[in-house]
């Protein structure tokens, strides 16, 4: 892949959240290292999946890329511009081109706003369309794009089901005609029979507008379906990244192997026949991550070097990156 294909470059991104103590005199006593030195590219028009367990830093990564959190260190280069260096109006101008879809369709829509106001907000904020008439036309068109009837315009969020609300969230994200959308667990709050509807819609919109998605999820089956490439995160770092078939059929990192083998398969014979790697214990706290490889306390093939040295991010096959001493 040459540079023309790259839309977003993330370099050495770190985001630490301070832990403070004291009421009158607040002092910083530590940091939650939510994201700790990650680097990757997102190509134009692709869907990059970011998977991992809760607390591994997936959401923080997405938000830091969009500058909703300012990174502690590192760079996010968006189409040639370093987002970490711009602010104010120039950042706002760039923000038009990047949007976000949130996990909880109940919490992410203002219950006191009508649908037309919710979807129209990006148009007003970015002054994209002047005039009520033009805005209303655009909002109607957006509703049609997400397969909702335009007569819903003056309704309120509580009148919609979860799946419909998520469509409204998608319509709002599309309002400013973005090219890049961070989808933060867009389907995990939805019922099984509704998930496929929203996933198909997102795929159609991608084809239609050439969108680039960063798809953050913990449902590994859906990620395999929708993503072109997948990055596996553990405790603030990316441990493996490659094309979806490489990651799913030939995972190299012991954490990826364990994670994939833990996903239930809706087929009783297949799921009972396969070999599972059951990990011991829980994910350690990101405020005090283990030394060396962060996965070493739970790793089934841990060695001496793993406890001491941080494994290097290596390309073991074209486009297949792993951070593990044992691979």
């Amino acid at each position, binding site marked *: 892949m040459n540079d023309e294909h790259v839309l977003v470059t993330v370099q050495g991104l770190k985001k630490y959240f301070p832990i403070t103590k004291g009421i009158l005199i607040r002092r910083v006593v530590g940091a939650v290292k939510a994201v700790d030195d990650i680097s990757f590219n997102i190509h134009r028009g692709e869907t990059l999946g970011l998977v991992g367990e809760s607390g591994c830093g997936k959401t923080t990564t997405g938000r830091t890329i969009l500058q909703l959190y300012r990174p502690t260190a590192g760079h996010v280069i968006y189409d040639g511009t370093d987002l970490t260096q711009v602010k104010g109006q120039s950042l706002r101008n760039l923000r038009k081109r990047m949007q976000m879809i949130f996990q909880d369709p109940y919490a992410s829509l203002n219950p006191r706003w009508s649908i037309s106001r919710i979807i129209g907000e990006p148009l007003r904020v970015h002054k994209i369309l002047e005039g009520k008439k033009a805005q209303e036309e655009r909002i109607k068109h957006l509703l049609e794009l997400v397969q909702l009837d335009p007569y819903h315009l003056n309704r309120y969020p509580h009148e919609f089901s979860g799946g419909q609300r998520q469509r409204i969230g998608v319509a709002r994200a599309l309002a400013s005609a973005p090219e890049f959308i961070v989808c933060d667990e867009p389907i995990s709050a939805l019922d099984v029979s509704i998930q496929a509807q929203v996933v198909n819609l997102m795929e159609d919109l991608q084809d239609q507008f050439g969108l680039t998605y960063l798809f953050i999820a913990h449902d590994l089956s859906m990620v395999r379906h929708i993503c072109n490439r997948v990055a596996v995160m553990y405790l603030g770092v990316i441990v493996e990244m490659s094309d979806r078939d490489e990651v799913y059929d030939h995972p190299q990192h012991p954490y990826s192997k364990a994670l994939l083998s833990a996903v239930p398969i809706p087929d009783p014979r297949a799921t009972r026949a*396969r070999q599972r790697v059951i990990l011991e214990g829980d994910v350690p706290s990101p405020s005090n991550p283990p030394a060396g490889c962060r996965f070493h306390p739970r790793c089934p093939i841990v060695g001496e070097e793993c406890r001491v040295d941080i494994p290097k991010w290596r390309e073991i096959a074209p486009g297949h990156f792993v951070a593990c001493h044992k691979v």
Partner: protein
Amino acid sequence: MDPVLEVKNLKVQFNTLEGIVHAVNGVNFTVEEGKTLGIVGESGCGKSVTVLSLMRLIPEPPGRIVDGEVIFKGENLFKINKSSIQNIRGAEIAMVFQDPMTSLNPVLTIGYQISEALMVHKRISKQEAIRRTWKLLEMVGIPLVKESFHDYPHQFSGGMRQRVMIAMALSCDPSILIADEPTTALDVTIQAQIVELTKKIQSQLGMSIIWITHDLGIVAEIADKVIVMYAGYIVEEADVFTIYENPVHPYTLALLKSLPRVDSKRYERLAIIHGSPPDCLHLPQGCPFVLRCGFAVKRCSEENPQLKNIESEHKAACWIDVRTGKTR
């Protein structure tokens, strides 16, 4: 073999300001000794209400058990008095809930909470209860049991809390363990731990399990028999292999088709089920699935099909034979 639990024609309704919610509409099933029954369905399909009403745990009012019998060890649980049901609840039939944080008392140590159940139900001394609690904690894989005994729920992670819940449920040697979405709030690697643990304990103690979930993957792994619920009705029932390999209800069929698989390279478009589940306040006339069904004919919107035997031990409620497209 006689079933441990038999549910006959269970009907549960809730009175709300908007009208009567028909949460469970005539459900029949049995639980065999030492076997696992999986109940699957989407939110609002009545799966939780079904098991809560077995133990008379739904709030009455607004809830009301309109009809039905629950036969447990020869007794109808809907006919016995309050104190006898308390002896069964927690002792003979125990339950593990979805959210281990809200179902544990945050101001009591976990040791106290487990030993309390033992002292109430088994009438044993405090020392004996503490000893048994250590054993239970060890069985569910809590490290350093003697120290953990004095810890509070917030000191545990989600997976560990669910282990504590399981220990508490097992404390009185129940014949039936009801698990209501016990792994939904957990990560997949922790979910795998809990599933393995439950299977191991079941093989040691031989209790029956009712496992409620919306995740067809988990059911494939753990259940012997599966019930698929939709809008308060059982729409299909069969052993686990038949449900997945030979589903005959259009809803089961569509659900299985809409799921991507982690082990499969087939990337065609996902099959979708149009619309959303019906509101149990206003169920459509006829079959509850009729508006979303790809096979529906005229009769489906007029008459609600009963759950009938398709083959031995395989039941479905549908007018259509999905394999031929003809009416049954």
